[in-house]
């Protein structure tokens, strides 16, 4: 039997829910960010606690090992400088050819490193939060990647943190280009809820001939991701809708389950 206080509680909760649902999108986003910022001190504490073992290990690391590591890094740095000189010459030549053809000049990617601070607690979304926000120049729909390949895009931005929607989430669709002679183009869409490594490449043409092991890159279409970022490689393919389309499974180049740091591309240039 419902009593008066039960009705009151029911009404109060219903009122709160209706109020939140009736708010404009902008106000809801602000409220969401404000509520999420309550957790920031705890994430700061966690970050400090995670750094403690690393700092302790650094303190007890032998000097010989440190010197060897410094030497290796010095060698690697010199090799990378030579490669950069070569790449700069190629880029210069590329710019000259682009100027001759009247194409837009390519701008070097401006990347910013971000730490992954947490993952989506709900099992039906694939998102994570990074420690860069609007004060760092991050805005919605910027591409997020690692040296291995594409990770996803920024979906919401707060002052000090942002939400990144990962590849394989239904809200992160990417136009993918298969690196084969036909340059087949499809759409990277959601994967399965359990496997973070596989996604579907859908809407390939019915006569697309994609083979296992072929690389998939961003096509530059869609207005968010620049062309040529590695996405993964084809695992297998099949025709669907009575041969109208081909679908392929793609093994992602990046291990999305073990991400700790990502790069946000602050100046994605979309035109070729």
């Amino acid at each position, binding site marked *: 039997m419902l009593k008066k206080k039960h009705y009151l509680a029911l009404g109060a909760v219903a009122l*709160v829910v209706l109020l939140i649902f009736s708010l404009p999108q902008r106000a809801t986003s602000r409220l969401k960010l404000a*509520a999420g910022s309550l957790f920031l001190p705890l994430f700061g504490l966690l970050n400090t606690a995670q750094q403690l073992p690393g700092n302790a290990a650094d303190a007890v690391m032998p000097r010989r090992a440190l010197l060897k590591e410094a030497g290796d890094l010095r060698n690697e740095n010199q090799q990378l400088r030579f490669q950069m000189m070569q790449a700069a010459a190629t880029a210069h030549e590329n710019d000259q050819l682009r100027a001759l053809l009247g194409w837009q000049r390519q701008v070097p990617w401006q990347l910013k490193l971000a730490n992954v601070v947490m993952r*989506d607690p709900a099992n039906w979304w694939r998102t994570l939060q990074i420690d860069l926000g609007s004060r760092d120049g991050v805005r919605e729909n910027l591409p997020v990647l690692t040296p291995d390949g594409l990770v996803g895009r920024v979906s919401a931005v707060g002052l000090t943190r942002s939400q990144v929607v990962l590849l394989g989430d239904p809200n992160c669709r990417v136009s993918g280009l298969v690196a084969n002679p036909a340059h087949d183009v499809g759409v990277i869409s959601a994967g*399965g809820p359990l496997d973070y490594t596989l996604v579907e490449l859908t809407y390939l043409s019915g006569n697309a001939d994609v083979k296992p092991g072929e690389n998939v890159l961003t096509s530059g279409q869609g207005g968010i991701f620049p062309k040529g970022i590695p996405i993964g490689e084809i695992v297998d393919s099949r025709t669907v809708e009575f041969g109208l389309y081909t679908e392929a499974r793609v093994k992602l180049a990046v291990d999305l389950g073990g991400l700790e740091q990502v790069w946000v591309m602050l100046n994605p240039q979309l035109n070729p």
Partner: protein
Amino acid sequence: MNPLQTLLILAAAFLAVFGEAAFSLLHHWLGAQVDLLPVLMVYAALNSDIVTVSLLAVLGGLWFDALSANPFGISIPPLFAIGFVIYLQRELILRELPFAQFVLGAVASAAAPALAVLLLLTGGQDPLLGWGSLWQWLVMSAGGALATPIIFEFFNWCQRALGYQPRTETSFRPDREIRRSRM
């Protein structure tokens, strides 16, 4: 209403949401993250008042949605529905029995994500669902079932440690006094 108990439940909900977002080991091993909010709701509905149940549903739901890609506030109705139903039936539930706690935890942990996904689909959202979701549902339900007796034991311990101890009574009763006569 016991304010200390309410505060403890809300603090546990806050830490539970933080833990679910910060630690993903369980997600790596089992493919699903166990949600402790339905478990806390079972405890609140059986051992607390309707105000605590409502506060837990509203604040817990908002905290969860703040760290998730869920629309803000979508987790409140499932949590409140579970808490309200258990609260209304709590006189009929043997709340002290670990088996009853286990079953209630399993049912609540299964119902909360199912209701949330139902609301998301009704609202035109496109959550990541597939055959693997059944496994995730099973893991969430089993995890919630296992966690419920532990949560009950933890809160009982907190109550003993932080609350007033019940006054010990002597076995003396005046009506049972043996009056001895000279004989």
